[in-house]
């Protein structure tokens, strides 16, 4: 399998207080083309921080990042900001936990879905952009796509907004989609639909996905490989089924034991 993203020894430290606070330590991740990797762990385990670092969105002054995030021959941690921007939204996309607030409230859906094309492919004409945006909205499962195109975020439900976020993230046909707890804020039924949608996009467009969640059952449904994190450190990694069947680390065992099981009774 061709490796498209190679993260080694990622180390993130905050300097907000007198003592530096390490939020991610020795994080390694190799992502193959078309692969779906899950990162699980409780809140504060550093999973979202690692994801934001890969997406190039950790840019506070009071922090230190070391290690390597190699993509397309560039180290995303040290490369020029302009270079990084050419990847953001075009080759590496991200969707977030909060679909209700992640869209700009005063811009139309169509405009927001088209934006990555507008930024990265100015050669595409306005009509083509619109065509592609509507097609993308359709393929993320929004039935009345041409109507949604002219709507504003507040007119859509949380699940629909997350679909719009996915459409905007996928319109540039990126190599990597980072999904940072994309279903946490949604209803259970909608959660399953979003997971199905990610599966479908992965299959049809060949996009590699980094799926971050604290919900192990979702990770089991979706990911071939899983990374378990605790307090900024990877405690276990491997094939999802293997990890689930034979967890080696006590923390992983605890996480698996915590999955609510449906008791069908006798």
């Amino acid at each position, binding site marked *: 399998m061709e490796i498209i993203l190679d993260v080694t020894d990622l180390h993130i430290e905050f300097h907000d207080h007198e003592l530096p606070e390490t939020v991610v330590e020795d994080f390694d991740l190799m992502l193959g083309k078309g692969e779906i990797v899950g990162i699980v762990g409780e809140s504060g385990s550093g999973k979202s921080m690692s994801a934001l670092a890969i997406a190039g*969105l950790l840019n506070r002054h009071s922090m230190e990042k070391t290690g390597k995030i190699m993509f397309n021959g560039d180290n995303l941690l040290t490369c020029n*900001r302009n270079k990084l921007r050419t*990847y953001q939204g075009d080759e590496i996309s991200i969707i977030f936990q909060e679909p209700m607030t*992640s869209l*700009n*409230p*005063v811009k139309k859906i169509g405009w927001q879905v088209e934006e990555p094309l507008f930024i990265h492919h100015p050669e595409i004409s306005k009509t083509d952009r619109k065509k592609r945006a509507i097609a993308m909205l359709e393929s993320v499962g929004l039935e009345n796509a041409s109507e949604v195109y002219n709507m*504003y975020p507040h007119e859509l439900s949380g699940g629909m907004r997350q679909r719009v976020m996915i459409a905007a993230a996928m319109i540039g046909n990126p190599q990597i989609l980072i999904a940072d707890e994309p279903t946490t804020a949604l209803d259970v039924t909608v959660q399953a639909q979003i997971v199905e949608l990610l599966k479908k996009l992965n299959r049809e467009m060949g996009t590699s996905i980094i799926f971050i969640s604290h919900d192990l059952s979702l990770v089991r449904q979706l990911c071939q490989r899983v990374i378990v994190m605790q307090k900024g450190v990877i405690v276990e990694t491997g094939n999802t089924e293997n990890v689930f069947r034979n967890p080696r680390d006590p923390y992983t065992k605890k996480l698996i034991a915590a999955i609510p099981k449906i008791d069908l009774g006798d």
Partner: protein
Amino acid sequence: MKYIIKKFFSTIVTLVVVSLCVFLAFNVIPGDPALRKLGTEASQELIEQTRQQMGLNDPLLVRYVRWFTSFLHGDMGTSYNYNVPVAGMIIDKIPITLTMAVMSFLLTILVSIPLGIATAKHENGLLDKTITITNQIIMAIPPFFSGILITFIFGMIFKLFTPGGFVSYTEDMSKFIRYLIFPSVAIALPKIAMTVKMLRSSLLDEAEKDYTRTAYSRGNNTSGVLYRHVLKNAMIPVITFLGMLLADMVAGSIVIEQVFSIPGISRILLASISNRDYPVVQAIIMGISAIVIVINLFVDIIYRIIDPRIEIAE
């Protein structure tokens, strides 16, 4: 469209309510207009006759409707002091005061928006720090004082204008505008300081929002995020504020007109208040209220254009 019609009607209702308040207020104030007109020496019969003539014996509501409808037709009553129509007294003063208010308003927008953006963009930079301190100082200086300073510095030292040398718009438009620049600056200065501060904090608030992170994740640079995403959101509270400022500038030009010896509305207003020339005061107050209400209508409409969520909230 439905929204605009709705707002338009509520504006009319507001105008009627305000006019009722103004009318009632001037009826509560002691003093008999007939007596005022005739003087204390007049005989009781003559007073009664004049009261009848002036319609003062009619019920309150009848008098209000008569006053309001004639007001709408441009008849604002007759001045007690000069015995001439109020409309004629103020009609050629209105452009002076309004021009000055509009000029200060434009100045406020033209200066504060770029400055607000610059300070927010380079938060805690040298420019930001300088402007923040300058803002504090300017906000603390009342317009009449900055007016005196401006007169002294630009009028007497640099001789950019002749203090007291007001030229009416009927004589020379360009000289009229040139003279008004300086009082407009005096009015605008504290407003600029406030608007810069407000826009800066609004921009910085918006920059913390989730959608900003989304914008960056799509490959936007700082300018892209600022102009394509944040600015429009940040302008929503600022527009409300600017609407209030414009209304305030119309009313607030009164002091400045005195400082710069401009024969605008304020001179008549002050004279009428001290002479108890109520019809004039009433007309001017009504006029200022109407302007404020109409400005609010425009602010609401602009609001609606910028923020698509308003309609649902209605």
